[in-house]
């Protein structure tokens, strides 16, 4: 039946076109299908990357297209690497990345481990835990800004209720000490479920017979956790760390919505500095150099990390 339909289609196809199609090799046909994607990739990803590299050596400003563009050599890179504010922004970024990854991994793995126990209603609780991750960052940012509001915010009220400090003194977004933590809390709340999902996949991939063998050997629960669960889930945990690390290195939306980089420059992470330089101060060449430095840093660190991850997987 299928052959007959194919014959009909072949007969209905105009001869020259059919010949043309028949004349293309498999490789040629593959290229034909892939080429639109490759062209798009070149236009949207590769060309802008090379263009940014070119601009990073110039004094180009997007708001002055008529000005003569001068080649500055490595001056933009030298200026960035010698700028104290940039280093402070990098430290702030590192602080966020470290604490968010640590908290999200610990809590995410713990939640995955608990959910994996398959207690009554575990599917329901899994869905509930996943809700924050499904919300838009814009919604989450505004939602938490209200929660943190010192006069009417629920968060301030709860802290006040527990600690006895007046709610108007719980100024999460205005206080220099608390503002970084306010963002870490929100990011952890939103993205821990993501880490949990990956860890859960890791835990569920461990064959049951290994635990049965351990039971036969009378290994304690603690021993089973350290010798079976953790090592076998480790590649998955490391994968979650990689994803969250890359995401949080370029964290922008949450910081922008909650504090805008303030108070002062306390929460000004690298992406906020980059945005200010590129789209507020219009230093296009300078900000391109900064973007390239960030790209190289993330790419380099991610590569080292992936090699470590592969080693863990091969064990």
């Amino acid at each position, binding site marked *: 039946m299928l052959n007959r339909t194919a014959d009909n289609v072949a007969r209905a196809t105009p001869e020259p076109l059919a010949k043309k199609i028949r004349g293309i090799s498999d490789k040629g046909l593959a290229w034909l299908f892939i080429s639109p994607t490759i062209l798009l990739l070149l236009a949207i990803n590769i060309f802008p990357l090379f263009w940014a590299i070119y601009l990073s050596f110039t*004094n180009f400003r*997007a*708001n*002055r*297209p*008529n000005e003569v563009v001068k080649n500055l050599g490595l001056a933009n890179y030298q200026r960035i690497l010698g700028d104290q*504010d940039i280093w402070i922004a990098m430290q702030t970024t590192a602080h966020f990345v470290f604490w968010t990854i640590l908290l999200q991994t610990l809590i995410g793995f713990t939640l995955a481990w608990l959910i994996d126990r398959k207690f009554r209603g575990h599917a329901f609780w899994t869905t509930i835990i996943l809700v924050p991750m499904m919300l838009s960052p814009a919604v989450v940012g505004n939602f938490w800004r209200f929660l943190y*509001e*010192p*006069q009417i915010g629920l968060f301030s009220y709860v802290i006040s209720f527990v600690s006895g400090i007046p709610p*108007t*003194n719980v*100024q999460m*977004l*205005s206080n*220099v000490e608390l503002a970084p933590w306010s963002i870490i809390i929100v990011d952890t709340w939103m993205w821990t479920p993501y880490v949990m999902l990956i860890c859960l996949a890791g835990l569920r991939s461990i064959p049951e017979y290994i635990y049965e063998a351990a039971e036969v050997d009378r290994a304690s629960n603690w021993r089973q956790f350290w010798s079976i669960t953790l090592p076998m889930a480790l590649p998955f945990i490391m994968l979650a760390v990689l994803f969250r690390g890359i995401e949080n290195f370029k964290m922008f939306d949450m910081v922008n919505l909650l*504090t*805008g*980089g*303030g*108070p*002062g*420059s*306390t929460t000004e992470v690298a992406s906020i500095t980059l945005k*200010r330089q590129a*789209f*507020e*101060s*219009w*230093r296009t060449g300078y900000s391109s150099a900064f973007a390239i430095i960030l790209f190289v840093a993330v790419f380099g660190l991610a590569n080292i990390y992936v090699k470590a991850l592969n080693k863990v997987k091969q064990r």
Partner: protein
Amino acid sequence: MKSTLKMALGLASAIAASTAVTSAAHAEDLTLCWAAWDPANALVELSKDFTKETGIGMKFEFVPWTNYADRFLNELNSHGKLCDLIIGDSQWIGGAAENGHYVKLNDFFDKEKISMDDFVPATVVGYSEWPKNTPNYWALPAMGDVVGWTYRKDWFSRPELQKEFKEKYGWDLGPPTTFDQLKQIAEFFQKRQIDGKTVYGASIYTERGSEGITMGAMDVLYSYGFQYENPKKPYEMEGFVNSEKSVKGLEFYKALYDCCTPPGASNSYMGEGVDAFKSGQVAMHMNFAFTWPGLQKDENVGGDKIGYFVNPKGPDGDQFAQLGGQGISVVSYSDKQESALKYIKWFANKDVQAKWWSLGGYSCLNSVVKDPKFPSSQPYAQAFLDSMAIVKDFWAEPSYAPLLQASQKRFHDYVVAGQGSPKDALDGLVKDWTQVFQDDGKM
């Protein structure tokens, strides 16, 4: 099959024809770009008269203040044709003139006998001229604006509060004329219970992202003796920007922020200020004058409950206020420049300007603001007039954006985050601004 094809063709033709008719009917429509705020709504109302008179339709592209500069500077930089007319911020004038975004209006003004002498001088310098103080005009003053203050007249007039205040400070509670008095009043009201509610001293500008804290701090710094540069040597900032007087001004602004603002007001600008005042949180409120018509009409805090005062004097008696407001320009990339110029001519008309003021816009035309009836035309009219007489503006240089970002950072780091000293902040500002002018080849 054939009939279906015919139907589809017929439908397509009908759609194409209707689109063509629509396009023809609106071929002369002008698009005016501005910020989305109350005066923009008044302008929509006002512009209906222009359409009646000329048959030229008006379309409006209004963008919230937070995205206003990003959106329209991108549009201008990319030579976009979206805006035929633009009401651009006063700081943009240098860049817009030098980069060819705006049409130079001198010949047009001469031809149509529109004289800049007919407008309030500060608005001509602030909104129209580049280079400053030269007769090169790139905009018609459109919306006069200045930072001033509103206060809770009803709270100030309570006998028990007046008595307590007099006993404590030795002078009558009323609109302050100096910054010291302003701080005393703010301290007096801070965390006071009024009608069973905790209230606070003052709402001031602290916003970090765009221009807020700069507009607020400058409002104080000018009257303390801050100067952008040596009047005899352009771009020489050392000893002027970071003078002792400037240091004291910035110190005062921080003290005012620390002592007398509502909790959590660390990122407050126009909208947040209006909210704080409208919700009855604060006794005094720093904001641009454009907010006053809306507040005057407010059921809870407007009417007899609200009063207005001019930015107070500094310790040496100097008194200045931060200029806001904008001029209206014809975009050089527009294909409808002739119609756009017609709009400018119409807008400059005396009767149109009078109606503009009555609708809630702030006219800059002398014949409107110097009319003997003007001060009594609105409760805030006199405060507006007095404020416009003492204005100063931020750098209108083509590089105003990095200059502004530097002051935003330095002021917020010190005032809100409490990092370093006021001298450190202003020394840092001199360093940043010097770098910007060096990059521009001006130093």
